[in-house]
């Protein structure tokens, strides 16, 4: 066995080390040191993030099964930053009596899904890709059903695992058909064999359905609202940002690398799907009153914008996508952070309960407002820049009508984001949520999100880093 190959898997191996350490800690640590479990978990993950911050050079391992490149390393770091923020925001909930006994499982399960995503991103072969997808999905189902005795959560978990397994099955069928027509599963070798005959197109559609489920594109989004509502808020935020971001990026890479010969076909398909996704999600979000369901539909529409960067097919598209994922991470986790901390204190998740929040909790309201403005694409927040660049990449390939329709949809989305702002700042309430002080972990994570939302756009250095390493079709 050639152990030198393992050196290329530095990110994955170090993540496994962290996972095993946390598992062993959970099993064997007793007494006073156990109180620092959350701190140790966050520090371990933070240390891992810093250790792997430097993007790795292009490398192949295990005969081309595993690939790494600077942009892939950067995306892994972005996703891991998201996981770290989710960890921090989950602290208070995990310390509660119902969850604390399963705390170690939470960390290990979440890191397993992250590991699965890392393999998915670094795959050079459909087999490793599939292993990555499954490793990212199955523990996620366990996470969704974490509060298993709450009826909502058990239902959400069941819906998630059944839909995920079905989608994976379809995806695998598509992959097998590709293998049947091309004769290889390696991403390098397949493009030469893609000729666009009906079987291959059908196989591509099946593959896309599997990925579309993970990204929650319309019409594969039906699981999103119920799962987001039923899962614990930390898991919801993780699903909406990290899971989605990984899936979108890997889909982009596969479309650019493997399916480049049939670019016209998948671009026309994506055109329709983007339109459907953004429109349907916006229309459904208008009527939601439960904030978690509301954010679920908002995330579905954001996935539509992400796909706008994919349809462009250029390096600008890839750079804009990675930048958008990072900005979306900060904005969405900011919103979910506020939702989560208010849910932990008062158990309330309805928009009506947020009426008059500015009177009692001004800083939380302002943070929520800034994150929502970033999601809507209002300058000078980072969301404006990320949306502008994504639109720019799609327009660069000539999809002006699509960009116009997407922009008209941003108006609708602005309306429902403003509904929350209106509730907090304008609506009157005789009994607003009482003033409280969030715990330190939440504060740190919210400050990180705020800094991201405020400065990622104005300081161009981040976008330029992504631009340097991105590649197109």
């Amino acid at each position, binding site marked *: 066995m050639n152990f030198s190959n393992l050196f290329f898997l530095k990110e994955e191996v170090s993540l496994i080390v962290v996972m095993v350490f946390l598992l062993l800690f959970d099993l064997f640590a007793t007494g006073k040191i156990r109180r620092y479990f959350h701190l140790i978990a966050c520090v371990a993950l933070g240390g891992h993030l810093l250790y792997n911050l430097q993007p790795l050079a292009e490398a192949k391992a295990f005969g081309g099964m595993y690939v790494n490149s600077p942009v892939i390393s950067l995306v892994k770091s972005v996703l891991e930053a998201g996981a770290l923020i989710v960890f921090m925001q989950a602290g208070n909930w995990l310390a509660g009596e119902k969850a604390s006994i399963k705390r170690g499982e939470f960390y290990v399960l979440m890191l397993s899904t992250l590991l699965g995503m890392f393999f998915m991103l670094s795959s050079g072969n459909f087999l490793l890709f599939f292993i990555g997808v499954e490793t990212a999905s199955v523990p996620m189902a366990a996470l969704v059903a974490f509060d298993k005795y709450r009826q909502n959560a058990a239902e959400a978990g069941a819906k998630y695992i059944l839909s995920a397994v079905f989608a994976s099955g379809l995806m695998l069928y598509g992959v097998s058909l590709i293998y049947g027509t091309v004769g290889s599963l390696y991403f390098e070798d397949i493009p030469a064999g893609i000729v666009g005959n009906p079987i291959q197109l059908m196989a591509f559609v099946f593959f896309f359905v599997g990925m579309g489920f993970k990204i929650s594109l319309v019409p594969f989004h039906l699981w999103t609202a119920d799962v987001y509502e039923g899962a614990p808020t930390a898991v919801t935020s993780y699903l909406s940002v990290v899971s989605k971001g990984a899936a979108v990026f890997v889909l982009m890479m596969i479309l650019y690398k493997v399916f480049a010969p049939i670019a016209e076909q998948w671009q026309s398909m994506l055109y329709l799907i983007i339109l459907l996704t953004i429109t349907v999600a916006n229309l459904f979000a208008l009527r939601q009153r439960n904030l978690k369901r509301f954010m679920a539909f908002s995330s579905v529409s954001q996935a539509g914008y992400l796909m706008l960067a994919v349809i462009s097919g250029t390096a600008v598209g890839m750079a804009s996508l990675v930048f958008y994922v990072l900005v979306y991470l900060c904005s969405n986790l900011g919103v979910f952070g506020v939702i989560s901390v208010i849910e932990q204190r008062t158990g309330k998740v309805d928009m009506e309960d947020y009426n008059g929040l500015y009177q009692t909790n001004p800083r939380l309201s302002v943070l929520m407002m800034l994150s929502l403005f970033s999601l809507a694409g209002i*300058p000078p927040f980072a969301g404006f820049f990320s949306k*502008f660049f994504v*639109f720019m990449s799609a327009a660069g390939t000539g999809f002006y009508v699509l*960009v116009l329709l997407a922009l008209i949809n941003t108006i609708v989305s602005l309306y429902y984001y*403003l509904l929350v*702002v209106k509730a907090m700042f304008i609506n009157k309430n005789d009994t607003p949520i009482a003033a409280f002080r969030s715990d330190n972990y939440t504060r740190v994570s919210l400050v990180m999100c705020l800094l991201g939302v405020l400065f990622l756009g104005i300081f161009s250095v981040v976008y330029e880093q992504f631009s340097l390493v991105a590649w197109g079709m």
Partner: protein
Amino acid sequence: MNFLSLFVAIPVLMMLVLLVSRSLNGIRAVMVTGATLLLGLAVMLVYMYIGERGAGNSAEMLFCADRLWFEPLNIHYVVGVDGISVVMLLLSAVIVFTGVFASWRLAVQQKEYFMWFCLLATGVFGFFISIDLFTMFLFYEVALIPMYLLIGVWGSGRKEYAAMKLTLMLMGGSAFLLVGILGIYFHSAPEGGSYTMNLLEIARVHIPVSAQRLFFPLTFLGFGVLGALFPFHTWSPDGHASAPTAVSMLHAGVLMKLGGYGCFRVAIYLMPEAAKELSWIFIVLTGISVVYGAYSAIVQKDLKYINAYSSVSHCGLVLFAILMLNRTAMTGAVLQMLSHGLMTALFFALIGMIYSRTHTRSIEEMGGLMRVMPFLSVCYVIAGLASLGLPGLSGFVAEMTVFVGAFEHADTFHRVMTVVAATSIVITAVYILRVVGRLLYGNVLNPAHLSLKDATWDERFAVVCLIIAVAGIGLAPGWIADLISGSVLPVVGHLG
């Protein structure tokens, strides 16, 4: 840092200082200091600009500074001014300054109000100094969202409805504008080379006419929504009526001019062929704006609605003049922007002061105010006379130039439209004089009004500043007209 960037840096600094202010007097002090600084800066800029031009500097834009921002996309932070920008900056500084005094006695949450006000000012100033399309669009959008909160929290009447309608419609306009800008960007290098967002560079390049035909309407429409182009003007009456006084002043006075300025600087400057081909559609629409706005003002009973529709009519005239595509009319357009900006700010300030005393804006419930509040009433009369174009006040200078320029076109279509637009002068006179007569003269309808106090020192100061500006331009417009006319030349030359 280039001194032009101070126009953006000062409001941002004001916001940061307001964040840590505690007392009401501290907040007022910050606002007055900042607004005075900005006004001083604008006046100094005018002086320096005239000096530079007098010394023979004939570069298109002066005091430029360029800083690379997003290198992969060739987006720069470029700033520079020409005569028109200088005039607009002066207008904005004056209105921000008087707006601070008009909000002196705000009752609730003053800190947050002034912070949003500063953000609004940042967007406005940044828009006028930018030469890069991306930066212009960024500042344009920055000026959009504070309106929602300013109207929604501190407004009156149907404020939530008005705020949401205004925000969504203006965002709709900017949606079209963004596609237009992206279209211009991706056609800015027809002979090869890299795409650019820089206005001056794009103006030198010739954008293919087929692309121009597609993107000119989108861009003009995008800016036109903010400039009250019929039929996208419907956000304006409700928005202005529900907004607090200083916000209406700033919005009608300055923000609506962003639309006119954008149409001029981006749509017509960069896409001259399409402008010549397609201007007739927009001339019809703006002609309708001018007349329809005036007619709508006649039937209103609420003072603010009258003024809001009047603004639709006057801003429609701005766009109408720009579309005439000749030097005189475009000079008139900018003069009208300046004149109407000051006038409408004056009107809204006065209406706000009257409303805060009588607690009604309906002209059916008020009368004979000249006897009760002589200072405010005399100022209202002056504002009314300026609005209907009395010689000696700024309205006359602007409208005269616009109609002379519009009439220079010898063909039937332009002449007919000019006559149609000119009828608005008569209609304006009708509604202005009617309101002045009913509101200020005659009998006092409500006995409670007899005990109302006249203007306080802060109110007098704001109003007098604006009246001096309006009368000054009306009596001595030559220096401003020369300033503007010189800068209109490049655009007209492009069209020629």
